[in-house]
């Protein structure tokens, strides 16, 4: 009995540092955050009142929330589609493990190691000075109809390499013998792609889609760096909406309630999509 307690004690000691940090940084703030979302706190004064569900009610009624929601969803849908399509295409093209392909992969993945802020700034300057100065193309970021496309293009540049790597990992796990057998049976290149590559890549597809949905719904840095939500509020995303209400506008309770709605949205959308894809994986 004593030995068992000792064993559990040592186990617990092993986990303790990680748990302490996790509780301190995530769990306690998370629980406090739920409480704050029911108050009208401004973020610094010592007095505040509980207002029940008032914050949530007001957020859902706020007419200016439509823009940020649409922007975040637009960004998510566009980046999920383009990053996956381009990532898969490039992965197939660079699949063979030759020297040249390895060098190409290195370059395609290289943007991903830059910070989102740096990516945002580089592209802002490329749009406004290089493209405009040399080709006379007006910056996409200056027009409220094209600004989200401008942001998406930055994201394509940075993240397609990541999608490519995930697909490459999937492709390399498919045994070459499958293709050879299909070839002998007379299947053409397209047929082989459709009947072997696609179904066996389903897990990689699931990873990429859920990952980019998660990143997309949380998008913040690009917009902060490139446009600060402008022109007007045309590129404000939901994560920025939360940030703006919490810090610059000093409406902590309201911002916190919006953050909780954001969390719910992410859990519901990601959960539903990943469940759907996993089920499809089994069918294929």
């Amino acid at each position, binding site marked *: 009995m004593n030995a068992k307690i000792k064993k559990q004690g*040592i186990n617990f000691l*092993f*986990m303790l*540092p*990680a*748990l302490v*940090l996790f509780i*301190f*940084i995530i769990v*306690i*703030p*998370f629980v*406090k*955050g739920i409480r*704050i979302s029911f108050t009208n706190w401004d*973020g610094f004064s010592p007095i505040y009142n509980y207002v029940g569900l008032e914050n949530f009610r007001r957020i859902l009624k706020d007419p200016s929330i439509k823009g940020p929601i649409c922007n975040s969803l637009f960004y998510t849908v566009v980046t999920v589609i383009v990053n996956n399509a381009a990532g898969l295409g490039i992965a197939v*093209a660079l699949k063979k493990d030759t020297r*040249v392909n390895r060098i*190409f992969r*290195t*370059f*395609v*993945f*290289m*943007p991903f*190691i*830059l*910070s*989102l*802020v*740096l990516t945002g*700034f*580089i592209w802002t*300057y490329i749009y406004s*000075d290089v493209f405009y100065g*040399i080709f006379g193309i007006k910056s996409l970021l200056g027009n409220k109809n094209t600004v989200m496309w401008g942001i998406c293009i930055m994201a394509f540049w940075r993240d397609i390499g*990541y999608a490519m*790597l*995930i697909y*490459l*990992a*999937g492709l390399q796990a498919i045994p070459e013998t499958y293709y050879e057998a299909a070839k002998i049976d007379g299947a053409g290149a397209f047929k082989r792609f459709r009947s072997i590559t696609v179904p066996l890549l389903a*897990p*990689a597809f699931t*990873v990429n889609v859920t990952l980019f949905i998660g990143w997309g719904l*949380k998008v*913040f*840095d690009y917009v*902060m*760096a490139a446009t600060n939500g402008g022109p007007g509020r045309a590129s404000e995303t939901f994560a920025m909406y*939360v940030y703006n209400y919490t*810090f610059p506008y000093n409406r902590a309770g309201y*911002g*916190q309630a919006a*953050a*909780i709605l*954001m*969390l719910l949205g*992410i*859990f519901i959308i990601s959960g539903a999509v990943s469940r759907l894809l996993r089920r499809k994986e089994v069918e294929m």
Partner: protein
Amino acid sequence: MNVKKRFCKISAFVLKLLTVMVFVMPFYIAVVYALKSPEETMRTGLALPKKIYWQNFTEAIEVSDFWSAAANSFVVTVTSVLLLTVICTMCAYVIARNGHSLFYQSFYYIFLAAMMLPFQVVMLPLYVQLRNMGMLNTRIGMLLTISGFQLAYNVFVYTGFVRNIPVEMEEAAFIDGAGKFYTFWKIVFPLMKPIVSSTLILNALSVWNDFQISLIIAQKPEVRTIPLTQFFFFGQYSIRLNMAFAAFVLAMLPIILLYLVMQKYIIGGVMAGAVKG
């Protein structure tokens, strides 16, 4: 047939090359603009520089307070990465080796859920908590918070790896009277080297590039890391084009060097995460 095949091969190569060039272009633009004087840029656009104009860099270093930002980034990154490696491997080891226990597995699922958590949900309470503890505007506050956010992913990846390490060697060590601590660090941890090296590098990238978390914690210029310095630098002033690109190149340089040296581990790490899904 042979000619046709050759033509296909060449056009496929050209197509690939063009695609890759699209990805390289912004790097090329950044480097070329950073190395040219404003006059030469006006005249020659995207052409390679004839005369290298180092003044862009000296000015960018001075105006953006580069060395102080680089030192902050470096300290925060190295300490967080070391901290994460030590605490997460130990935690993952226990979770992986107690697969039958509901108690330990529940932590696994809690970490899994925490990976989806957007920073905004804990942003304000965390800010208040750090303020009350005097940890705002400190490197320690920054490194603990960023590590806290990386932690769940680390434990998740390490647990998956340890599950596939056979237990026999540990059992032999226990029979020989070795303690758990000794067994872990001398036997299990060395076996985790491949996953530790790639996760470590990926952590370093995320910490080095972090913006959202440091934005609320490091508000004083002395503690700002490179992404933050850039944010305030470009947000407040309209900067001369060539100097701006020199600042970008400076910020890129350390991380690109790390990438080129550690490429194997970075790419391996991303791919290892993918297979598990």
